[in-house]
């Protein structure tokens, strides 16, 4: 059975290694500051106990006042998982550092989020639209898209 790690332990580890990166710890996920997500991800990947080698899924929700990115991380070797969240406030010119350098599996998923939600990932090797064509007006999965 894939174990869902207790967010407290993961948050504690993060706090020890990267102070002030964790914004909030909830039962199911840890909210990480957007600026530090790459550091956090790299730590989670390289730490031997956590060993989050796979970015399982990358998703985003539009909460009108903010966007919440959800990073589902998985360690196949240790068979456990954890969830990170990043909050991006506002509606225009949204940027988040890209985790594609950490896990290449983020490459297409970040492009999809850029395409459908309009969040730009800084440091992504190829930040282009993916499902829609270049010049498509707006970002269709936003709640205000009509």
């Amino acid at each position: 059975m894939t174990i869902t790690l207790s967010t407290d332990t993961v948050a504690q580890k993060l706090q020890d290694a990267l102070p002030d990166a964790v914004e909030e710890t909830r039962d199911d996920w840890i909210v990480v500051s957007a600026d530090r997500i790459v550091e956090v991800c790299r730590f989670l990947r390289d730490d031997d106990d956590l060993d989050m080698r796979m970015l399982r899924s990358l998703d985003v929700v539009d909460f009108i006042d903010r966007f919440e990115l959800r990073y589902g991380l998985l360690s196949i070797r240790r068979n456990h998982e954890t969830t990170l969240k990043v909050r991006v406030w506002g509606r225009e010119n949204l940027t988040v550092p890209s985790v594609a350098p950490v896990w290449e599996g983020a490459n297409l998923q970040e492009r999809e989020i850029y395409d459908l939600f309009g969040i730009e990932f800084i440091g992504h090797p190829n930040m282009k639209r993916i499902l829609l064509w270049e010049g498509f007006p707006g970002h269709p999965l936003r709640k205000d898209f009509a």
Partner: protein
Amino acid sequence: MNVIPDSGATNYDIEPVLLNLGPQHPSTHGVFRIRALLDGEEVVDVEPVFGYLHRGSSKLAEERSYTQVITLTDRLDYLSGMSNNLAYVRAVEALAHVDVPERAQYLRVMMAELMRIASHLMALGFLINDLGAWITPLMHMFREREKVLDLFEMVCGARITFSYMRIGGVSHDLPPGFDAALNAFLDDFAERVAEYEALLLENEILVSRMKGIAPLSGERAIECSVTGPNLRASGVNFDLRKQAPYEAYDRMNFDVPVTQNGDNWDRMWVRLQEMKESARMTRQCMAEMPDGPTRTPADFFIRPPVGEVYSAIEATKGELGFYLVSDGTIAPYRCGIRSPSFINLTVLRELCVGWKLADLIVNFGTLDINVGEVDR
């Protein structure tokens, strides 16, 4: 991924050829497009271009009630509708805390495994077709798939767009006579698989076309979030059915075929073996299925409590996850889909660069992409 026209890959004396495979091409499995930069026959760079089948399933789901979204999931990976149904209803059940009766769990496993047989048959058939066999193996595999679809038609009345799973169970119990029909199919299927193996596995041409071509290491596969048979072909024994058993999988006896090389041959071989395991599981489901209700009553316009859930299953092409966010209304606030076909495409470029044009087609075939799931 490289941007092809201004990539740095042009330090050649001869200008490479930019070949545009698709969206209308005999072996791009639908409306998929590959921009390939070729130096003679050798592939220099590859960029997949997609979105030609984008239907906005996530957006459509936000305007439909939870039950109605089931019909949308049929159309994600249209070769494995049952698995998609299952992944989605499991997410809703986790969100709304609905229990599933035991008989329904067995039914779900049975349908998902039959679907895996049908989907892998298509994957292999089209793969051999890509290899240049003039649709003979494809036709033979189509025939077996038709029989699976006949079984599905008996159970739920449709052959492709099943909408069989329901929140809290399945829509129908088994019809009378299903037991005999299933056994007849499974008995025949074992013979047919032996025939496929005779037709394919020992053929020198096939071996030379696939053995050692485009290997993918396990480390790279994990890094690129590759899941499903492609990951297992690379030597990583990760299958959600074993690692995180859902429904009745913890009671199933089955092996997860794993190979070490991650080349085209292994990707094909793993699928061939998985079909056998699925047939085994289907037989076991039929034998061990308990009596009882097949559905926990749940509202048609169910209102899950505010919250969010990510729930994934081992679908035919890999880990199919649904990320549902509820705001307490009858429609999901957000329905994110982690589609295996889409994410497996991350490695396409890596698999193809340095190999021949003919290998590009085969590599694409062994990745087993379904465009409906890539574009959603």
